């Protein structure tokens, strides 16, 4: 019997396809929605299982999810997060450190239908206009490779507006003093703020800063057939049990599946692009039953993250430099966001398991290019939530491994119910030496070489962290924190924001893909996720992934005029 986790979804009768999309996350779902709307027959491949029952059922109460407010399942038992026992990655800071310094969970984000956005609390800010021009604005930065984007904010604005409507973003137009111009209001007003976030926001206001409701793809009223969020408290790191989150699965991918032009195959791992000269002629997959198959279409779209896209390109050229890599840039300029986590522990409790984890933000610390008094940092997420198991593990690993003290800490809960935090999503400078390639020895449980991450932070982001650290502590003090400190950084990258590696641009010698995401070297291969981005910005990526991917797909339908694809 076919497992419900791997059963084909959508139009199962389709047997020939115009486009195969690899990855059902934000980028892949965005592409599938556009292409199927214009009659293209699309096959979406997803390596992970499907936890949406009835994703292709038009009944308004569908889909029903198997997500739940179950901390054990989501945070400890790899329900959606990539399991390092099944698929480890390896890491080293630099090439000089040898083949690897670590094997295990490296940037392990969810692998499931809907992709990494399923686990996110779906924060969806737009980038600032200057974020697309840092090559020009910053000039030459030593050991970094900043570049302008081949598309600017003005052209992207209608795509941003579409993205906000498509996944349902709540927010308050005009509340972010550093935001770019908007063509209209947010589709929904802000929902309920969390107490911990509001306390910090007040602290920030006292210092003259400008906190505002975080634009978030979570419903604050019934929207597009989905119910209003009820602030259940298990949001960040959890799939939404009631589909209040605008996960791409229940918004974009569902629309594609309901069109009749789309077929989704969960638990289907793409392991090789089959090449014929400069064209892709098939994709080899491992099917849910473990058999190998080759699937064929006219065009192929990579949307499996900046790490897995590169892994596939490398696996497709054994012993070579990787498919589509005449520039030598495939896998290079890997970026994350350099997180600076400021924690405030208060005497009072915050009932942190009520609300959406993060409800407010400030952009005062995003900075201004070339202004030494305001270095480029990033948006600050305000608020936090964590569960009782996570808190217990924190104590077991750090302060009280067992016994009466452990129990006392759990009951008094300084690191869960009395803590609220801010996370600065600092811009990570692009560097050629920060890269993804294949580990020469370590393989996954299918015997396939795993991705190796080589990454070391640049002074660009570490100095910004040093600059903003006292300012973050000032906010915590202003808000009344009894204890305020910056969490130590981990040497092993754990960031969920994976950016770069297939940079897009107009020059084939300095970029991998063209301005519309098509590989310079390969006429029928595209990328449609944050792998394309030349720079990381200092903002959460989901909305901009939808925006850019929609433009990529729009250009596949209307070459040279992608905005014609906007509904």
């Amino acid at each position, binding site marked *: 019997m076919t497992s419900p986790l791997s059963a084909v979804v959508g139009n199962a009768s389709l047997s020939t396809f115009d486009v195969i999309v690899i990855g059902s996350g934000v980028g892949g779902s965005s592409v599938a929605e556009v292409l199927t709307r214009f009659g293209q027959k699309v096959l979406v491949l997803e390596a992970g299982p499907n936890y949406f029952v009835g994703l292709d059922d038009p009944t308004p109460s569908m889909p029903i999810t198997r997500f739940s407010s179950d901390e054990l399942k989501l945070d400890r038992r790899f329900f959606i997060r990539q399991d390092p026992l*099944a698929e480890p990655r390896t890491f080293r800071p630099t090439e000089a450190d040898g083949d690897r310094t670590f094997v295990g969970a490296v940037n392990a984000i969810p692998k499931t239908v809907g992709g990494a956005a399923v686990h996110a609390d779906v924060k969806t800010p737009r980038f600032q206009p200057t974020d697309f021009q840092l090559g020009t604005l910053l000039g030459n930065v030593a050991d970094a490779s900043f570049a302008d984007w081949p598309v600017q904010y003005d052209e992207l604005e209608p795509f941003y507006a579409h993205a906000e409507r498509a996944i349902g973003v709540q927010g308050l137009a005009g509340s972010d003093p550093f935001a770019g111009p908007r063509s209209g209001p947010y589709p929904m007003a802000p929902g309920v703020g969390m107490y911990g976030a509001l306390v910090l926001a007040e602290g920030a206001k006292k210092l003259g800063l400008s906190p505002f409701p975080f634009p978030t793809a979570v419903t604050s009223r019934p929207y597009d057939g989905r119910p209003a969020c009820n602030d*259940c408290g298990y949001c960040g790191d959890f799939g939404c049990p009631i589909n209040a989150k605008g996960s791409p699965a229940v918004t974009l991918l569902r629309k594609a599946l309901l069109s009749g032009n789309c077929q989704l195959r969960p638990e289907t791992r793409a392991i090789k692009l089959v090449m014929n000269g400069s064209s892709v002629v098939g994709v080899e997959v491992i099917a849910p039953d473990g058999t190998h198959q080759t699937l064929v279409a006219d065009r192929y779209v990579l949307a499996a993250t900046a790490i897995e896209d590169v892994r596939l390109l490398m696996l497709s050229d054994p012993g070579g430099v990787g498919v589509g890599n005449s520039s030598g840039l495939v896998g290079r300029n890997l970026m994350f966001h350099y997180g600076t986590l400021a924690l405030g522990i208060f005497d009072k409790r915050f009932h942190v398991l009520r609300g959406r984890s993060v409800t407010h933000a400030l952009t005062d610390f995003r900075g201004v290019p070339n202004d030494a008094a305001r270095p480029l940092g990033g948006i600050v997420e305000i608020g936090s939530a964590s569960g*009782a198991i996570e808190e217990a593990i924190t104590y077991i690993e750090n302060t009280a491994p067992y016994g009466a003290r452990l129990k006392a800490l759990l009951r008094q809960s300084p690191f869960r*119910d009395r803590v609220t935090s801010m996370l600065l999503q600092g811009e990570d400078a692009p560097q050629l030496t920060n890269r993804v390639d294949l580990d020469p020895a370590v393989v996954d449980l299918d015997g396939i070489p795993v991705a190796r991450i080589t990454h070391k932070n640049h002074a660009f982001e570490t100095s910004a962290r040093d600059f903003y650290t006292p300012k973050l502590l000032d906010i915590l003090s202003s808000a009344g924190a009894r204890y305020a400190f*910056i969490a130590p950084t981990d040497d092993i990258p754990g960031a969920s924001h994976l950016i770069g590696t297939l940079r897009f641009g107009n020059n084939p010698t300095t970029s991998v893909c063209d301005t519309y995401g098509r590989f310079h070297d390969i006429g029928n291969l595209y990328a449609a996720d944050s792998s394309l981005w030349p720079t990381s910005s200092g903002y959460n990526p989901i909305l901009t992934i939808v925006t850019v991917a929609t433009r990529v797909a729009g250009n596949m339908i209307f070459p040279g005029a992608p905005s014609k694809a906007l509904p």
Partner: protein
Amino acid sequence: STCLCEAGDSVSFEFSGVTRQGTHPISFGGVSANPREVYVLNPFSSLLLAPWRLGGPLRVRSVGLLGASGADEGEELVGWASVVHTGYPKSDRRAGVVYGLRVISRRVFLRLAAAGVAASALPEAACSSTPASVVKAPPGSFFDDAEWRALNVLADVVLPPDDAPGGAALGAATYIDTLLRAFDFDPPLIHAGGPFSGRAPFANAIGGAASSNFPKNEFAKFLPLSRVADRAWRIRIFGSGLNEAIAGKVVGLRDQVKNGITAAMAASPTPLETLDLPTATALFSTLDPTFTKAFAELVAESAFAAPEYGGNGELAGWHMVHVDGDAQPLGYSIYDEAAQAYVERLPVSTADTGPDLDPMDDDTHAQLALYTHLLNGRVSS
């Protein structure tokens, strides 16, 4: 400390009530002299407050001053009492239950009640004393009876019983046994289902308050594993075995736990369950740290995971740390379509209104001050 008893027994329940001031093995007049005027605040829920008449067969086993854990120290918040109710017939599921109770004065009770804290009956069983279940392994267990008893002792080392249940009473042994035997079942007992457990109701369509309509418990219907997850979890539980060439050497959880328990039993001159808690704790500290860390994490998971995984019986783990657990589909706020505004069912955007049942004590403050200092942070007075 031991919590060994058979249902209905009047057991000897020794309690180590450590507060900020230390252990107070004293009695105070409120309970023993005139129990009918004592009110108790259920420590396992901030919402349940009951004027509970202490009389009849209720036997107080230990009492103490509240000190650091009292919202109002001294005169108003009198102390705590750990009691065992021996009056229920053996057929009653509440028999032998050990309650941990906060004892407060009538004045405090009335003040709290006036502040809007709901008064209702105490839950049937706030803290199971794990009768019988700590003595004998259940049928089909991965462990034999002696190992089962050892498992319970070590679980209490990780989370010692006080006025709230310890690791054993929270169901650590059953949780661990369920995980290690997950593949005895189809589907394997790794991922509980969803979206709802049935513990919280749907909201009323009009007005949004809690309805009397509860969803089915889908948590109890475990989900199949994907092809990849199935292989990974078999390795995690059974070890790498024939997969070692690919997965590397992985010692499975079965061997980790069994070897650790065996080592603990071997290190003890008498059966582990005969040791008092300090001695068992000292012994635990001599075990392989890889085992003690893994074991502590399993006990923590058992205490705070959804009860469908085998632990957190009667939700006592969540109650102990003031967590409501899964709240869907009701949640905490209701969008009122008529008013086009949110109504917060319990405070989301504002401060808690109830008492803080476990304020930070001096030891916690000292730890936090040290931690903050080490991280070059700031401490405010």
